[in-house]
Structure formats: C-alpha cells, structure tokens
C-alpha cells in the first residue's frame, strides 16, 4: 500500500459547508456513511494512545509517533458495508478513497472531489477489497510526512489526518456523495505543567492539590514521588528511569485539582512530590516544581485501640470463657433452621 502523493498531506483544505460540524474541540468530525461505515482500526494499537468513543478518531502522541516512525508502521483501517463491496465499488457507485490533512481543530469542511489537496488512493494498489470489507493500509511515515523519529517532538503544530471513502449512495442525485472517515490526531504539543502543587503524605496516602494546567486538551494528571531528591522541569519518565524509589501514578481526571493516592511509605522519611499533566494523546507535560514533605506517622482506629490497652486480638475462633455456651448452641440453631426449611419444602 502506498500513498500516491506526499505534497497533499501538508496543508489544510478549502471548504464545502455541507460537512462542517461545530464541536468545540474537533470541529471537523469524521463522517459515517449511510451504507459504508468504519468498523475496525486494527494492527496499530501500540501506535495509538486511545480511540474516541465513536472509534473513528485515533489519538497519537509523541511517544506513539516515535514508535510508529521507527517501526515504519502500517496503519490499517477497515470499512464494511451491508451491501456487497464489489457492488459499492462498481464504477457507477464508487467515487474514490482519499487521504488529507488539516490543522488540528480546523473548522473547515473538506470535499475531496476535484480538490488537489486530497491524495487519491489507487483502487487497485492501495485498497484491499473483499465482498464485505475494504481495508486501507497506510504507511505512518507517508501519512504524517515524517521520516525521522526525532521530528515527532519538533513538529510545531498538531495535525489531523483523514482517510476517506466516498461513494454515490443516493444514485439518483449526481455528485451527492456519501463519505466515511477515519481520523488520526497527531498531537506533538505537550501540555503545560500544573502549578502551585502542595503535598501531604502518610504511610498509606499521598494527598496532592494543584492549580490546573492551562492546556485545552487535558485528559488527566499524573503524580511522581520519590524518597530521593529530584527537580521539576523534566518529563516524568526521566525521573522514574533515574530513581529506583520513584513512582509514577495517575491521580485524577481533568475535572479535579486535588486527590488522595494510595501509597506504601515509611513514616518520618522525606518525600519529594511533583505533578504532570497529560493530554488526550498521552503526552506528559514536564513536571511541576518538586515539593518536599515529611511522611506523617498516623494511627488508625485499630492501632489506637491496641495502644490504649484493648485486649481484642482479632480472629474468628470466638474467645469464650470456660463454662460459657460458646458457639455450639448458635451452630445448632443454624443447622436446625436449615433442617426445618428442608423439611417444610419437602412437604
């Protein structure tokens, strides 16, 4: 499978208003056809951070981009239809298959018919057609126009790459094509780090609060803590790779700005804590400034009870003094009840 043109993927396109959609984050939403729908994006899960709920948008961050370019990955998209595909792709129905790119969050609708910014895929070479499905396999390097993995971190602007099938589902209105899209969002812009981080730690919990990152596509926050000193301003993975005591843990979605995280810490030790934001494509921000806190020694009710001199030792063999009825009568009543229930049922 080869992409026919490399120039066409570089820019955003002219508009045809019919397909415009005004969602705030992704105004140019992938369309689904009346007969042909995108049903599977397979073979590249390791190169995609996550799919949206509709399964028509794949988010790829810097790490996924680097991996895909290094591996020269092929990204396979499969469309299916309730009709026979050989029918749909008949000359009088099938219009074309395209790829094109737009700036991220573009609100400009794109129609590929006669539009040179779309790259037309070769029906014989680029499409694998069965009677019920059509697969489009794309080289990540050609789709994204990136050949060196290093460039994944230096691309200035995020972009959206579409794979589109178009056909004449109506058959009566000339030029009224239906479309089905798959979108790859290549996000190479890291979010801003959260600020004003505060932390309080106990043996079992690290409690953090922060001021939100100002980035618009946040997905969650992640906590890094270690008993060895580290500084903010670096990626979380750099700290976890450098320090054996460092832990990286998801702390909250983008709706929260404080959370308690379960931990296993030693009382009275010094703990260094920093926070990173993470966007929808899985990109971590740099860490906030690390804050220092001492792990507070705490006591729960069971400890307080024992420290106060409580005699309870736990366990299920109920301790009973000599001469007391113990558990035997209770068990006899239980067995009696069961026996009674069985007898009554048999009647």
């Amino acid at each position, binding site marked *: 499978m080869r992409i026919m043109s490399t120039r066409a993927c570089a820019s955003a396109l002219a508009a045809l208003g019919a397909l415009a959609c005004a969602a705030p984050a992704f105004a140019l939403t992938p369309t689904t056809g009346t007969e042909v729908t995108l049903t599977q994006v397979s073979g590249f899960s390791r190169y995609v951070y996550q799919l949206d709920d509709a399964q028509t948008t794949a988010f790829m961050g810097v790490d996924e981009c680097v991996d895909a370019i290094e591996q020269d990955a092929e990204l396979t998209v499969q469309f299916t239809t309730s009709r026979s595909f050989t029918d749909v792709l008949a000359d009088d129905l099938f219009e074309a298959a395209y790829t094109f790119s737009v700036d991220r969050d573009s609100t400009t609708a794109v129609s590929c018919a006669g539009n040179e910014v779309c790259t037309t895929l070769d029906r014989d070479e680029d499409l694998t057609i069965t009677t019920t499905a059509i697969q489009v396999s794309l080289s990540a390097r050609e789709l994204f126009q990136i050949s060196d993995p290093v460039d994944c971190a230096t691309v200035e602007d995020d972009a959206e790459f579409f794979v589109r099938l178009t056909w004449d589902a109506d058959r009566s209105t000339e030029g009224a094509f239906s479309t089905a899209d798959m979108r790859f969002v290549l996000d190479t812009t890291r979010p801003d780090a959260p600020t004003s981080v505060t932390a*309080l730690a*106990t*043996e*079992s*919990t*690290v*409690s953090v609060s922060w001021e939100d990152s100002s980035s618009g596509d946040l997905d969650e926050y992640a906590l890094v803590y270690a008993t060895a000193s580290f500084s903010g301003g670096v990626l979380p993975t750099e700290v976890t790779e450098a320090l054996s005591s460092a832990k990286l843990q998801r702390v909250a979605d983008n709706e929260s700005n404080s959370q*308690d995280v*379960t*931990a*296993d810490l030693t*009382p009275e030790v010094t703990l260094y804590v920093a926070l990173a934001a993470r966007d929808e494509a899985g990109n971590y921000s740099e860490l906030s400034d690390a804050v220092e806190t001492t792990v*507070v*020694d*705490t*006591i*729960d*009710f*069971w*400890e*307080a*009870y*024992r420290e*106060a*001199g*409580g*005699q*309870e*030792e*736990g*366990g*299920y063999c*109920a*301790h*009973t*003094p000599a001469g*007391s*009825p*113990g*558990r035997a*009568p*209770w068990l006899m*009543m*239980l067995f*009696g*009840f069961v026996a*009674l*229930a069985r007898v*009554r049922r048999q009647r």
Partner: protein
Amino acid sequence: MTRLHAAALACVATLCVSTTAWAESPVSGIAEVKFGGYQPMIDSEFGGATPFADYYADDLWFLEAEWDLYLYDGIGKLGLGLHAGYASTTGDIRSADGVSGDEVPGETSFSVIPLRASIVYRYDYSAIHHGIPLVPVLKAGLDYHLWWVTDGSGETASVDGFQGEGAKAGWHASLGLNLLLDVISPRTAAIFDLNWGVNNTYFFAEYMISRVDGFGGPGFDLSDDQLLFGLAFEF
C-alpha cells in the same frame, strides 16, 4: 362527642372488621427488613480512654434482614429465625503525635455483619380473630458478629501481627410491636397475597438488647441497645 372522636371511632371500627374479609393463603413464616442506629460498647473496655468514640463520633447506620419459619401456629405463632445485618462507619485517621494539627489524608473504617438465630413468638391471635391490628413480638437467641477494621489505605488494619478482623459471639433479646398494614387497604392486601403470597404486611418498631462480648470474654464488646424500625411480610 366531637366530630373528630366520631371519625376516629369509625376508623377503628373499620380497621377491626376489615382484617379477615378475605380467604388467605397458608402462612409459613415471615420476612423482615429493619434499620436503626448502632453504637457498639467498645469503649466500655477502658477506664477512661475512648478510642472508638474518638474515631467514630456518630452512630453507625444499621440494616438487618430476618427470615423466620413458623413451628407452631395456634395462640400466636412460634418460630425459628435467622438474621443477617450490616453496619459500617468511617473516621479520619490521625497523626501519631496527636499535636501536628494537620488534617492528614486517609480514613479508617469499622464494619460489622451481625448474624443471629432467634426463637420468635408473635402474638397475632387477637389480630386474626378480633381485628386488633397490633401484634406484639418477642425474640431471643444467639449472636455471632463478624467485624473488621480498615487502615488508611483501605486494607485490613494490622498491629504487631494482630489483624483487625474477627468475630464475637453473644446473645440478644427483643420486644417489638407490629402494626398490621393490611387494615389500611384490605383490597390491596388481598391482591398482594394473591400475586405474591404475602398474607400480611406489618410496620414495626423493635427494641433489641444485644450482648455480644464473647459471653464476657476479653476484647471488643459489640453490645448495644437498639431501637429498630422496619417492615415485615408474612408469607
């Protein structure tokens, strides 16, 4: 006689005559659901320390289900019952120095599953034969309460090898008063019986004394005197 008095008398008369207006299905037992507050006497083990009250200031909400099978049906009903309940509460854990003043994160919980077996006597003879919609109930039996404590991470608490979980045996006795709800709408009660086999429905209050301390053994005292309210469905 005022109009109010006249209306009250008419109402009582209606209640009295309407309880036996239909043919009921055979009765074999009763199921109860009840709730109330619960405050175990754990701190009674100490002279002055109050660790339980320090962590768990409020009463625990207590929910219990009971299933009785009748052994005798004559002047009232005598049966054998099994109960299972649940009560739980959480409190903030505290710093060990006690003076840091920090609001340390994390909670510690205390939970109990009371299991009981009872001899039950329900005096419903007057309700059935004289239309008096009140049924006194006596219960007494043995208890076995499962309990556990969690630490700040939600795991079972542990100190010096002693796990914060276990069980205590004991006994209970209770006196309850049931109000037969069928008298409010005999027609609905008849339909309930026809469709679900529920002969009678009661709202009740029950005062229960439980002594769950391993019959005087050391350690937790899960005893309490409780006022419970609930619904009972006789089938």
